[in-house]
């Protein structure tokens, strides 16, 4: 059976694409699926450090495309989850080193061997974007609840449609419940109302994302993290499971205290 090729994109930079790719990849692999992550951010690779695999790179995506090595040789197996693999980007090349057609071929060959192929798209709407979406069957758009990220996400919806990727799903990242509560941050409904696409999940702004990234361990593996829980649910939804959305109420002092002493979440 052919695997699903999913591109994760946003238009705006720094909203969390790489974090989302690492975590849904790791989440899907933890569910026993065979997953290949493709870093399409040529020249600015990061997926390797986020996954803690930066010391193992020998070959990269441009080597594969230029025929300097075989596909298998460039795939790095994850340290923790046996069914997770990374195809790293080239660091000393630029986006022009790859053509959309070549990307299509590469993702198609990966899809023959993996259940999921997840592509980390670079910021922007130029060549790097076109490469990243070329071989995708589905798209996930990452945004943050603020004006420029939402606006860029809307542009991306239009551009994806033009590429035949008509039903993208949305991840709202870095939501801050206490700001939403006091009316100083767009809430989930506002964003869905504006973008009019389906919601895949909401990830709270959470320090544990940064601390786990410091260690090179996707937060989805951290059973105590709220962001980790959000990513586990997103992975389950991609995998076809119908899981309820997490409640992201601003946490009261009481529930924070209860969590602190270890009773309740």
């Amino acid at each position: 059976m052919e695997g699903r090729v999913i591109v994760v994109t946003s238009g705006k930079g720094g909203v969390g694409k790489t974090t989302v790719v690492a975590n849904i990849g790791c989440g899907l692999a933890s569910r026993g699926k065979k997953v290949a992550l493709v870093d399409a951010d040529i020249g600015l690779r990061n997926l390797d450090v986020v996954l803690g695999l930066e010391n193992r790179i020998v070959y990269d995506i441009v080597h594969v495309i230029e025929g300097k090595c075989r596909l298998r040789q460039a795939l790095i197996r994850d340290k923790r989850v046996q069914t997770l693999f990374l195809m790293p980007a080239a660091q000393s090349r630029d986006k022009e080193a790859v053509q959309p057609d070549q990307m299509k071929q590469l993702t198609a060959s990966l899809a023959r061997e993996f259940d999921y192929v997840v592509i980390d798209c670079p910021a922007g709407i130029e060549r790097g974007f076109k490469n990243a979406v070329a071989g995708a069957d589905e798209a996930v758009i990452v945004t943050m609840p603020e004006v420029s990220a939402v606006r860029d996400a809307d542009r991306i919806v239009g551009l994806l449609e033009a590429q035949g990727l008509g039903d993208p799903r949305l991840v709202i990242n870095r939501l801050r419940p206490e700001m939403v509560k006091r009316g100083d941050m767009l809430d989930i409904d506002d964003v869905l109302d504006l973008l009019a696409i389906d919601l895949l999940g909401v990830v709270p702004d959470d320090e544990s994302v940064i601390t786990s990234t410091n260690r090179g361990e996707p937060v989805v593996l951290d059973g105590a993290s709220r962001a980790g829980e959000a990513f586990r649910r997103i992975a389950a939804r991609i995998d076809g499971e119908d899981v309820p959305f997490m409640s992201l109420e601003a946490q009261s002092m009481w529930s924070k205290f209860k969590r602190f002493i270890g009773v309740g979440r």
Partner: protein
Amino acid sequence: MFDFMSRILGGKSRLGEPRSKSLAKERLKLALACDRVELSPQVFEGLRLDLARAVSKYVEIDEAGMKVRFDSSDRRLSLVASVPVVGTRRTGQARRSKSRR
């Protein structure tokens, strides 16, 4: 109680200025609508003026109170104009007043 406190500490009262997220949403609505039809703000202003001119050929309007916006619920775009009418004029009159100029 908590709500009350946060309203005092958080700045604007309920009756005061809108919170920043409502502003964000309103501004985004228009920006997205314009992006989607690829209208620049200048072209949009032109559209507003033309509309005002067209409508005032038939009725007297309060141009300052006129509101034009794109509504983009469900990714379908429609142009919604609310034009306060301050007086009617007969079509004949409208034509006459024009020819007099």
